[in-house]
C-alpha cells in the first residue's frame, strides 16, 4: 500500500534569511521549490517561501501530523486562493543583458529554440524540460524572458504562466505552441500572456516575438 502523504503549511518563523532551510518546501501544487539545507537571503524569495511554502509530511505515522495538514489534492486547491506574493517590480532590460528561460519537453525543439536565442546574444539561457523545472528555475533565477511550451506533462505551459504572472506580472512570458488552434488564446490572455510563438520556429517569428519584448 502506497504511503499516504499530507501537506502542512510551512512555519514562517522557521524560515530565516542566511540560514539553512529546516525542511524541503513545496508549492501547494506539489512543485518542490527548495530543499532542506539550502540558504536563501533574498527578501522576495523568503517572503514567498513563508507565505506560500508547504511541507510534505509522510502520514504513515499518524502521531505527529499537525492539525492543519491536508492531502496534496486539497492543498492544490489553495493555489488559486492563497494570498498573492509578488517579486519586486523590475523594468525590462535590453536583450543582451537579459536572462531567458526556455521550457519544452521535447529536447529537439528545446535545443532549436535555445540555439536561435543564442544568436540573439542573450546574457544567459536556462533550459528546463518540464513545467515543474521551469517554475523552480524561475523562482531561483528570475529570468526576464520565459518561453513555455504549452503541452508539457505534469504542469503545462498555461499553469506555469499563471504562477509566474502572479509572482511577477512584468516578466515577459511567451507561450510556444505547435498548432495555432490548440491554443486557448482567451484563457492565456486572462493570465496575462505577452506573446505566442507558433511552431515551426524560424528566425522570422522569433524576431517578431522579441520585438514585442523590446521594439527595436
Amino acid at each position, binding site marked *: 500500500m502506497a504511503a499516504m502523504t499530507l501537506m502542512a503549511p510551512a512555519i514562517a518563523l522557521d524560515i530565516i534569511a542566511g540560514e539553512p532551510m529546516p525542511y524541503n518546501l513545496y508549492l501547494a501544487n506539489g512543485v518542490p521549490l527548495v530543499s532542506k539545507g539550502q540558504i536563501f537571503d533574498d527578501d522576495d524569495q523568503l517572503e514567498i517561501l513563508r507565505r506560500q511554502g508547504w511541507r510534505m509530511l509522510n502520514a504513515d505515522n499518524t502521531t505527529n501530523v499537525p492539525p492543519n495538514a491536508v492531502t496534496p489534492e486539497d492543498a492544490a486547491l489553495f493555489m488559486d486562493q492563497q494570498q498573492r506574493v509578488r517579486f519586486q517590480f523590475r523594468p525590462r532590460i535590453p536583450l543582451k543583458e537579459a536572462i531567458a528561460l526556455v521550457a519544452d519537453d521535447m529536447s529537439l525543439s528545446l535545443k532549436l529554440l535555445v540555439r536561435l536565442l543564442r544568436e540573439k546574444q542573450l546574457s544567459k539561457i536556462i533550459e528546463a524540460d518540464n513545467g515543474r523545472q521551469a517554475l523552480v528555475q524561475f523562482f531561483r533565477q528570475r529570468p526576464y524572458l520565459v518561453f513555455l511550451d504549452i503541452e508539457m506533462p505534469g504542469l503545462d505551459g498555461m499553469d506555469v504562466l499563471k504562477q509566474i504572472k502572479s509572482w511577477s506580472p512584468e516578466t515577459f512570458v511567451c507561450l510556444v505552441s505547435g498548432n*495555432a488552434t490548440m491554443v486557448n488564446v482567451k484563457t492565456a490572455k486572462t493570465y496575462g500572456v505577452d*506573446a505566442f510563438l507558433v511552431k515551426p520556429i524560424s528566425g522570422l517569428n522569433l524576431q*517578431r516575438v522579441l520585438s514585442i519584448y523590446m521594439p527595436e
Partner: protein
Amino acid sequence: MWDTLAKTGCWRGEVWNRRKTGEEYLELLSIQAIRNNDGETVGYLGVFGDLSSAKREEELELARQAAEDAMRMKTQFLANMSHEIRTPLTAIIGFAETMTDSRQTLAERAHAVDTIIRNGRHLQSLLNDVLDFSKIRAKRIELEYLRTSLPELLAAAVDSARAQTEEKQLEFGVHFMPPLPLHIRTDPTRARQIIFNLLSNAIKFTDIGAVRLIVSFIPEQELLAISVQDTGCGIEDERIEALFEPFAQADRSTTRRFGGTGLGLSISKELAEQLGGEIQVSSAVGMGSVFTVTLATGPIDTADLVWDLHEFNQSSGVRPVRTVRAPTLFGNVLLADDNRANQDLIALYLRRCGLQVEIAKNGQEAVEKAQQADFDLVLMDMRMPIMGGLDATELLRLTGFDKPIVALSANVERSDIEAALAVGCDTYLPKPIHLDAFYQMLMHYLPQGEHAHHAVKINSLQLENDPELAQLQRQFHAELPQRLARMRAAYIAADWDELRSQAHQIKGVGTNFGMPELTRLAGAMEFQVLRGDISEVADLIEDMAHLWQQ
C-alpha cells in the same frame, strides 16, 4: 356609486378585491337596492362575481388574434421573399450555366456576365433591404448622430441620380432654396439611404419628363425638407396609404414592370420617423408625384445658415470622376477566407493591383502562413471554420505580427466592428466588397510599386530553333507600335468596331510570340468593348504600350 344607487336603485361595476391568499383580482359587483312599497330603501342586495377569469380569456383571445395576424404576415412575407429571391437567382444560375458552353460567342458571354452582375446586385440590394427592414421591425436599428455636411450628404445621392436619369434620358434638376444650413446633426448613412431611395423610386417610375430634387430648411421647427418631384405615372389617392406597407407597390403589375423589393418606402418611412421627421406624398395619376421627407437637423444657429449657395451648387454640379481603375501597388498579401468564390474574386482584385497573393482557408492557416513569410497586409474574413478571424487576429498580434490586418465581414453592426478593432484589426471593410473602397484601402496600406517587373517574362526559348517563327515574331514586334497607334486613334474617334478588331487580332497572336500578358490585356479589352464598358479601355491601351516598351 351611492348617487347611482339612490337614483336608479341599482349599480354594477368592477372592483378590485383581495383573496385570502393575498392575490388581487377583479370582481364584478352588482348592488340592487331593496325598497319597500313607499320607495324607501330598506336594504341592499349585493352579488359578487369573479371577473378575473373572464378578463383573462379576453386577453388570451386578443393575444391569439395578434399571433395569428403575425403568423399571416410572416407567411405572406416569406412567400414574397422566396419569389423575390428566386427570380434573380434563377437568372444568375441559368446564365452562369450557359457560360460553360464552349460554343458560346464572346458577345453572348458578355451579355450573360452583364445579366449575372445585374441580378447579383439586385439580390444584394434585396438582402440589404430585408436586413434593414427586420432591424427596424425588431427596433434594433442603431442611429449614429454625427455633424454632417449637407452638401456632402446630398452629393452622393445626386451623383447616382444624375447617372440614372442620363441612362433613361430624363431631365434632372437640383434646387436649393436658401437659407440652408451647411451642417446638420443626423445619421448621415441613414439620411443618405432615404434620399437615395426616394430618388431612385422617382426615376424608376418615370419614363418621360423630369425628376427634381428640392431642398429647403424650416428654421422654426429645425427641420430639413427634401422633396423629390417626378413626372411619372402617379398614384391613386386610395393607394397612397398602402404605399408604405412592406411589399406594396402601387399595383402588382407595376412590380413586374418596374422590379424592386417593395421594401424601400416602408424602410424610408421608418427611418425618417426615427430621424425625427416624416415622409409625405402628394400625387396625381398621370401627372406625377411629390415625396417630401423631413429630417430633424438639431439646433442650428442663424449665423450658420447659408444664403450664398455656391458651395451647394458646386457639390451638386461637379461630378467627381469615379475611378475603379486598379492602382499599381507592391507587396505580399495574405488573404484568409473560407469561401472559394470570395478567394478567387478578392485574389483577382489583388493581382490586378500587381500584388502577390497567398490564400489561407481559415484562421489557423492564416496564423501558420504568417509565421513563415513576411506579409505586408492581411485580409481577414471574420467568419471561418476551425479558427475565426477574431481569434486569428488576436493570436497573430500576440505572435508579434505588426503589419496591417483588415477585417472583412458581412456583419456591419457596430459591436462587430468594435470587436474586430479591439483584437487588433486596423480597419473593417464590409462584404460584399465595394471596389472603390477596397482599392482605397489597399492604397492606404501598401506602397505604390512597379508591377510589370515580375509579371512579364518574354518567353522566347522555343523560337530560337525555328527561323520562320522568329521572323514572324520580329515582324509582329515591328508592327506593334503601329497597331497601338491605330488603337489610340480608334479610341479617340470612338470607333469601337475598329478597336475591337485590333484587340481581337493581338489577342490571337500575343501568346505565340512570347507575350502572354499582351494576349491577356487584349482579351480584356475585347471583352470590355463588347460589353460597351469603355471605362478601362484607355488604361488597357496604355498598359499594352508600357508592356511593349519593355
